[in-house]
């Protein structure tokens, strides 16, 4: 479809290998570690399926929706533009959330599980009392989430404070507040843990802290909070 578009219409840029008018489409980012590197907290089987099947599917469907959106926008087809919003939120949200997630995890030998130092560590103690209290809060809210979704540690840029939030399905964090910046997200969709932990989501939540990459969360925090 993209090729036919290039042949039939003038392109406004010379580099548009996919799509018309340089429509930016997306591809699966590599994981910064091997599939087995987070074991035993998260199994290699889950990491591979999660990355190669689930994340890839969000990207494939997001690209499809973006192409359809581009066509509808060009034609001035307002009702199709509106109809596509949910597919964009689902699949674009899925891509955004999982891209953050892979950075939120790290093998133990690369610092996974090491508590945050510096300003984030201090801010966590200030906001929640202790790291343990934050972990307890996120685990409890993650376990209680009905259906599919995410639990987040976020920086509220407007009020300059840390908050714990949950989102449903693949809703991005900004749907809970436009000034929220995600520092750490934990996927509690069943696909994130089922093959290993089955119905016992609390065990997944207990173990994932061993591979949480607090260094990345600190970097994001310090960038927003210089």
């Amino acid at each position, binding site marked *: 479809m993209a090729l036919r578009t290039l042949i039939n219409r003038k392109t406004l840029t010379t580099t548009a290998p996919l799509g018309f008018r340089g429509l930016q489409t997306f591809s699966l980012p590599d994981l910064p570690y091997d599939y087995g590197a987070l074991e035993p907290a998260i199994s290699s089987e889950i990491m591979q399926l999660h990355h190669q099947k689930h994340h890839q599917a969000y990207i494939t469907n997001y690209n499809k929706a973006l192409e359809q959106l581009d066509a509808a926008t060009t034609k001035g087809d307002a009702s199709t533009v509106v109809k596509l919003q949910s597919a964009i939120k689902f699949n674009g949200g899925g891509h955004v959330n999982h891209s953050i997630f892979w950075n939120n995890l790290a093998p133990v030998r690369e610092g996974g599980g090491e508590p945050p130092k510096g300003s984030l560590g201090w801010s966590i103690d200030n906001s929640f009392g202790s790291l343990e209290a934050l972990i307890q809060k996120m685990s409890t809210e993650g376990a209680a989430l*009905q259906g*599919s979704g995410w639990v987040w540690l976020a920086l509220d840029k407007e009020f300059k404070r840390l908050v714990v939030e949950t989102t449903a399905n693949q809703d991005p964090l900004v749907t809970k507040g436009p000034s929220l910046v995600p520092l750490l997200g934990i996927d509690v969709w*069943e696909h994130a843990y089922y*093959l290993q932990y*089955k*119905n016992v989501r609390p065990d997944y939540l207990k173990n994932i802290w061993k591979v949480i990459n607090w260094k990345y969360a600190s970097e994001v925090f310090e960038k927003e909070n210089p």
Partner: protein
Amino acid sequence: MASTQGFSLSALSSNENVAVKIELKPPPYPLDALEPHMSRKTLEFHWGKHHRSYVDNLNKQIVGTELHGKTLEAIIVDTYNKGDLHPSFNNAAQVWNHDFFWESMKPGGGGVPNGELLELIKRDFGSFEEFEKEFKTAAATQFGSGWAWLVYKAQDNKLLVIKTPNAVNPLVLDYYPLLTVDVWEHAYYLDFQNRRPDYLSVFMENLVSWEAVSSRLQLAKKAQAAQN
């Protein structure tokens, strides 16, 4: 407008729970009876852990409250609260949904229905194939957790396919449920991983109990006639 809510819907599932505690009913077949299409392992977790948890947690939530002693269907409608969900809704509806799901399947199931049900499917969808396509599409495109349903809409005397998120079911939407498929990931992940469409094909080809669907349709029409 005719409503399903004035009539006891407990006839549509066999869960006539007026007892004080909601019980976990077993599926109407052994846990390995749906092999190889739905594994024993899946049933052990899906019924033995998930469904059981919904029952246990619901009982804990309702003890000592005004919901205690009500029928399951009454609890569902009360806690749905016109969409402003009370905390017990998820557990109550999921107990009912899973009872209904096990009873929607049978060993040696699948294929095509016959009799009046087939005629109505052809009338309202064009053909059985078009119904199947619409049902599988609804189930495949329910984003996140949820269910797909074949329902009877009394007001229009019509069969419809709908999809619902999380625990929502047709009882609270004023339809008579006839068939369901669970598309929460726990329903298919052990057997099919991410391949929900494959799970849905296997469900349609090998698991659907058209007898259960037909008898639910008969009950729904009788219930509707009794109201008119």
